[in-house]
């Protein structure tokens, strides 16, 4: 038994391609503990996002093992992984991926509804989260009516909706200017301070500098 939320042991990921297999990750080991804030940096194509996808249970390693809260992910069915993603992991994407037909509040409610949270509890939690990301006055706005920074804050609120143990973020400031990116980074600091573990993959050195652990990747390997 470890205190790690997620632990990767000797993980490799090879993508078979018509022109030959591409190794995106080589024998990577990583653990993210409860309350941890880990930033992974590195050049484009070094395997950061691939590692994040494996940690986030949306992909499977070619070799090695990943355990999430002491459960070997490889032994889980897709429905079980989906349940883990829904309730224990919060995803933040570079391109936000808010549903364009739903308001900010409805986007935050969606994962809660999927998890079976009762409607009144859902609405209460959504109000709290909108206040948490300082968007209480934009609850009824569609994503198209929000700025990039506001959309990302809604996406962070959505990721936190089911009180996950781990927040994984793939280039969360990639589409934002520096000022807006800093606001998002501030928000991550708050999330971390409130006890949620964070794994962030970023090119943004300012964001990475706020993490408690910074790891660099190169050519599919974590640098010592």
């Amino acid at each position: 038994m470890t205190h790690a939320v997620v632990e990767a042991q000797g993980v490799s990921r090879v993508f078979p391609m018509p022109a030959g297999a591409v190794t995106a990750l080589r024998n990577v080991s990583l653990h993210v503990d409860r309350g941890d804030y880990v930033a992974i940096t590195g050049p484009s194509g070094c395997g950061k996002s691939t590692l994040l996808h494996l940690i986030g249970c949306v992909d499977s390693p070619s070799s090695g093992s990943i355990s999430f809260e002491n459960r070997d992910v490889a032994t889980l069915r897709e429905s079980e992984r989906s349940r883990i993603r829904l309730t224990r992991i919060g995803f933040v994407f570079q391109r936000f991926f808010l549903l364009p037909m739903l308001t900010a509040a409805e986007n935050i409610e969606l994962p809660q509804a999927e998890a079976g949270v009762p409607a009144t509890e859902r609405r209460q939690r959504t109000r709290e989260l909108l206040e948490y990301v300082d968007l209480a006055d934009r609850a009824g706005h569609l994503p198209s009516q929000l700025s990039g920074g506001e959309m990302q804050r809604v996406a962070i609120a959505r990721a936190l909706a089911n009180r996950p143990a781990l927040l994984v973020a793939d280039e969360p400031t990639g589409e934002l200017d520096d000022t807006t990116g800093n606001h998002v980074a501030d928000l991550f600091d708050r999330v971390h301070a409130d006890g949620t573990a964070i794994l962030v993959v970023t090119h943004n050195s300012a964001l990475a500098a706020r993490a408690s652990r910074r790891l660099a990747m190169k050519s599919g390997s974590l640098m010592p």
Partner: protein
Amino acid sequence: MTSFALAWRTATCYRARSALATAGVAIIGALLFDMLLLSRGLVDSFADLLNTSGFDVRVVAHEGLPVLRGPIHGGGRLAADLRLLPEVEDVTLVRIEDAVIPGPADDLKNVTVIGTTEQGPRSAWTLLQGADLPRSGTTPDRCPLIVTRHLADVRGLDPGATLNIRIAVPGTASALPQIACRVVGIADFAFATANEYAVATTMSALEAADTTRGPDEADLVLVRSRSSAGGSAAARAIVRVRPDLHAYSNEEVVSQFNQNGFAYFRQVSVVLSSVTLVFAFLLVGTLLTVATNQRLGEIAALRALGISRFRIAAMLLWESALLVGAGGLLALPLGGVLAWRLDRLLRQMPGLPERLHFFVFNSSAIVEHMVLLAATAIVAACYPIWLAARLPIAETLRREVIG
């Protein structure tokens, strides 16, 4: 938020796509609805036409087309015998002859003369003006006539007018004398074509006018069965009494026509219905597939957030159902108007009874229409659902970012 709510919000969010799909399904659905009406309309209309005569069994001398049927001799005796059957309520003899109506300046009009015995109500025509044919022995008229509205209009006939008729003998110049008939009424004939000149008179008047045929001959015997027995039982009873004749209930006549005369329309409607369903499938399937492909990143993100495959599949299925459902509902009034126009067009074909319709509204066509469109919606959603369900999440998210 339910899958239906998500689908509804998607449909309202992408308005142009939804409107395009709905309009397409509405047009295709209207054609499908019309084909379903056509597949049974003529048969239903024909059955209705037969039933309006008030008789449910037809007795003829030979099988085959009416023009080839031989005469039934001893009609009076036959009618008396049939009336004794417990399954039979009423019997009417019918005789049909061609005749000419001389007019001013050698303007001869060919006319069909229907002679009928006086028993029972005559519902093969709807009286518009004047009186019905008198019962036997109640009138001094030698030749009372009911004429079609069309003939009355052309010749300016009113009840009480005199009309000379000369029976035509097939294959020869007629040597029969013309007889003066008195118009007693003007009516719409159920079996008459739009421009046909037809008159009806009593059987005795027709026998007097046509001396070339034997007395007491009939071309057709119409029988009304007792409601406790029904047409089929009455037909069987008649054949038992007179095995030399052929008796058909209305259902049997309709069934024969359905298998022979109307098979063409049924086949056409089946082929066109299938084609319209394929079009509906292609339209909705293509739009949903394109829409799903455009939203792969969104779907991958939803999956990454833990939204289940089932929820996403249900959302796409509802989306398909909404588009097809809305189009299908719009298709009903659209198809109704189209059917009405097509029916008017087709009924202009020569030789068709004026009251025969190609498109007849029936509730089962609506049910079939809905069931077929629902099935199309499900089939059309299959590929997009499969696409969304087997989506590699990580690869799709990576591709979206690179894209």
